[in-house]
């Protein structure tokens, strides 16, 4: 992976490098820049130009289409479309909207707290402690993300609905009560389901950052008499602050933006959320009310912007304090959990049973049984699985998902490395804008970003030729997943000591060599984590896929939604299992790669 990123990113740069021979040190130093900052090399200028142009095309342009959509009566290019503010006036002039906003923030706030807590806990336990059976723990931490949101929502409705939920039946029998102990159709219930499948993203984003903390600083704290807990609180967490804040912002958006789960689980108790209104504006009756939908979605963009801008300022002011990867060897000393070792492990297992085994059990049972809940012989069938494998369309979807996932994840990570470099290692004016703009796609709900991409791509002659091919999906996936890859890789870029590059340059390394021998190897753990996350996100993506696919480029997630909409739940369950196999294979691959890397690098230092 890292190698493909290098090969994608460097050739033009290397050639420009050779065209412009110069000393190890560029001759001029930018006036007023810090003593470490030198003037941009031609290679850096090229890189900046490419990144700026790419960001404009990949991200800014669809965002612009989205903004225009909020002030037009019909999409750009429709003959009788006019300018209007009706979308905003309608959406925000209605007290009901604000009630929904409150509801959304209530659920989102609870979900965010849960997601960060679970993510932090697993990241710390797996990277910084001597917890037992770490591969098992990692499965518990990541695997719940395999479940498509729709499937998560439904399996929890089956498990914990107040009328005849399986879990409620078991618990009532156990406790001898008549009243169902759990009501999943509640604010807490919805927040819980969101935590169960979003927390793995937080974990995946935080793990490499935790790994990059040099234990020597923790050791110094211990030597000065601090307890393990005090060290974690006063040393480890503060040094990780930018990383945790960055992930926190992504997760905050992720907790506000979901649509399927609140829609499925909120309706029975009349808990309406903000995204339900967006869905209503787009689908209640055609033609869709874009102005209203996009005006509503704008609120999430504004929320994102108000969180990202202060973070940027904070990071650029305190850049030096977060460097944890320096020139000397890097040791990881594991915190001894002592008598907490096994109780914590048991707690994780219990968590795994609740968020993974129970929903999986429900899906598996519903996919192999004719009558749900009956264990009579003859009630079980594997026809669903065979049907999935034998239908040519489904086979094509499976193959496309894998190919597009591999390609999309690789390109996204390659692009994110370049963006992260430009943002954190150069001083070009406008680099912060690139960082900021790259954040925005996540704040636009899947339903709306799909439309923005459709309008943008089909409105551009250079891209419209791609429409109808697999390439258009690859481009869409890069845009949609970029914020996540960028967060993971930016955080690592901040942790890398610039002295390492300085040293390489002093020793005469060219720009290409610097990447190949210093930057990419140091970023490898983050690259692998980001790649895994992006791969899973692509396999799960629906919003853009459904508006951009054609028969040849059909993907698994679209087929799952198809079967879902037609009531073929057995097939949905079977396909979800296949999706999990695909994602599971990717995680396994990552595990093997990381393991090799860890053994090598941690035994002799980086």
């Amino acid at each position, binding site marked *: 992976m890292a190698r493909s990123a290098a090969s994608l990113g460097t050739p033009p740069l290397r050639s420009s490098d050779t065209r412009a021979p110069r000393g190890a040190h560029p001759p001029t130093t930018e006036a007023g820049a810090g003593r470490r900052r030198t003037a941009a090399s031609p290679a850096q200028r090229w890189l900046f130009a490419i990144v700026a142009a790419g960001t404009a095309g990949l991200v800014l342009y669809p965002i612009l289409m989205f903004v225009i959509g909020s002030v037009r009566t019909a999409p750009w290019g429709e003959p009788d479309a006019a300018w209007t503010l009706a979308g905003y006036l309608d959406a925000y002039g209605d007290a009901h909207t604000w009630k929904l906003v409150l509801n959304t923030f209530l659920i989102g706030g609870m979900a965010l707290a849960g997601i960060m807590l679970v993510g932090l806990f697993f990241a710390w336990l797996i990277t910084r402690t001597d917890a037992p059976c770490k591969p098992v723990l990692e499965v518990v931490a990541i695997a719940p993300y395999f479940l498509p949101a729709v499937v998560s929502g*439904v399996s929890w*409705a089956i498990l914990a609905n107040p*009328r005849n939920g399986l879990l409620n039946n078991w618990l009532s029998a156990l406790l001898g009560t008549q009243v169902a102990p759990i009501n999943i159709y509640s604010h807490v219930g919805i927040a819980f389901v969101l935590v169960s499948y979003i927390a793995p993203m937080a974990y995946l984003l935080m793990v490499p950052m935790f790994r990059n903390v040099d234990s020597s600083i923790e050791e110094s704290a211990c030597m000065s008499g601090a307890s393990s807990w005090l060290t974690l609180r006063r040393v480890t967490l503060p040094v990780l602050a930018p990383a945790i804040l960055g992930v926190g912002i992504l997760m905050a958006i992720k907790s506000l933006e979901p649509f399927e789960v609140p829609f499925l689980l909120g309706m029975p108790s009349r808990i*309406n959320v903000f995204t339900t209104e967006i869905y209503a504006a787009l689908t209640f009756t055609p033609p869709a009310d874009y102005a209203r939908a996009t005006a509503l979605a704008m609120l999430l963009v504004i929320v994102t912007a108000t969180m990202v801008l202060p973070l940027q300022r904070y990071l650029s002011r305190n850049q030096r304090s977060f460097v944890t990867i320096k020139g000397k060897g890097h040791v990881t000393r594991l915190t001894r959990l002592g008598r907490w070792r096994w109780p914590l492990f048991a707690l994780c297992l219990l968590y795994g049973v609740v968020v993974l085994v129970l929903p999986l059990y429900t899906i598996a049972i519903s996919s192999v049984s004719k009558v749900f809940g009956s264990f009579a012989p003859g009630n079980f069938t594997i026809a669903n699985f065979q049907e999935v494998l034998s239908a040519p369309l489904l086979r094509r979807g499976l193959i496309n998902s894998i190919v597009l996932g591999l390609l999309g994840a690789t390109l996204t990570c390659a692009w994110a490395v370049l963006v992260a470099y430009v943002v954190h290692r150069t001083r070009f004016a406008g680099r912060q804008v690139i960082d900021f703009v790259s954040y925005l796609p996540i704040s636009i709900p899947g339903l709306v970003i799909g439309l923005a991409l459709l309008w943008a791509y*089909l409105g551009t002659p250079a891209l419209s030729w791609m*429409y109808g091919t697999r390439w258009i999906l690859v481009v869409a996936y890069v845009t949609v997943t970029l914020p996540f890859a960028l967060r993971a890789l930016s955080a690592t870029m901040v942790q890398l000591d610039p002295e390492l590059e300085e040293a390489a340059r002093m020793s005469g390394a060219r720009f290409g060599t610097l990447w190949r021998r210093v930057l990419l190897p140091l970023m490898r753990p983050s690259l692998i984590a980001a790649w895994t996350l992006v791969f899973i996100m692509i396999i799960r993506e629906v919003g853009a896929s459904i508006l951009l696919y*054609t*028969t040849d480029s059909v993907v698994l997630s679209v087929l799952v939604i198809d079967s879902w909409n037609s*009531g073929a739940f057995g097939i949905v369950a079977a396909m979800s299992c296949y999706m999990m196999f695909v994602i599971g294979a990717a995680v396994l691959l990552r595990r093997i790669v990381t393991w090799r890397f860890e053994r090598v690098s941690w035994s002799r230092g980086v």
Partner: protein
Amino acid sequence: MNRIFSRDVPRRTLLQALAAAGCMLLLGAAPVPSAAQGADAFGDELYAKAKAAGEKRVSYYTSMVPAQFQALSAAWKQRYPEIEIQLVRADLGQTLERVMAENRARRNIADVISSNEASFAVLHKAQMLTQFDVPSRQNWAEPFKSGFNGFQFPSRILQIGIAYNTSKVKAGDAPRTWKDLTDKRWKGRIGIADPRVGGGAQLWFMSLWDRPGYGADFFRALQQNEPLVKPGIVQLQQAVELGEVDINVVAYDYVALPARDAGKPVDFVMPSDGRIIMATFDSVSRHAPNPNAARLLINFMMSQEGQEALAATYVSPVNQKAQLNPKGVKADGIPLFASGVSDEQVAKLKTYIDAINQSFQLR
């Protein structure tokens, strides 16, 4: 479009007319070109034209569910092996977005486009569709036959009824009419799909809301039975299968009946006070890259053969020469409450949404 939506078609007259037509057919008196089973000169001609024009595929932008498409394409392959149906499936709103966006960019890929009344209005206004006719139209059921507007072919007709869990409700006790649902004994046992979301649930609400003797009173009584509201009809079907609710008040026949056949504890009732049916239409795109193949696909879907292939998945055939699914639900003699939403209903949508919100306290 009003002609499609004329209510209360006198069923008896219709049956009489059909019986008469049948007799004439038997006597060989009616001039019915190329309607005999197996022979379809019109289709053969289109097939030849399509092949001559080098049309090897036909792009079908539709909401057709996987089971229906499998049945249709299996029959199609038998008859027209040299043209492949390229399926692009999304819901009707998304289908509309794509077609309109493709047209703005002059990158038209769609040959045949599915629509409902609301999305058709948009397509028609943008002059996206082209007029066409098929010989099998003379065999269509009313009100679709006389209501044909030259663009919309009602290829898939579904019926809305009541589904119940057979392990919770005995067949003899199951509700028989819409009004039965307001009986106190169903309190806390029924579920509805959110009618705001559109589709069958919205049609169901509109037609009963507008009907004398039902209206606000009916929905008030229904709400007193505390229905569980789920986002969609298929989610509700699952809730019935799993026993979360005993009765699904807004069920589709083509979803409930296959579940019953698969051995699930579900059955479907066609309420005897009134039928509510709904069509999904197919049209030829004006900008179809494969115009002959597009017409051929529509001709096939509307033919006896195509309609029978779809009937295997419990689509109600609009072509009356096609056999009903023998395991399907007979609706003979039941008055027709609605066969789709009317223009007037579409225009008043906001009023209905308010009525829905109020009836089920959704806001």
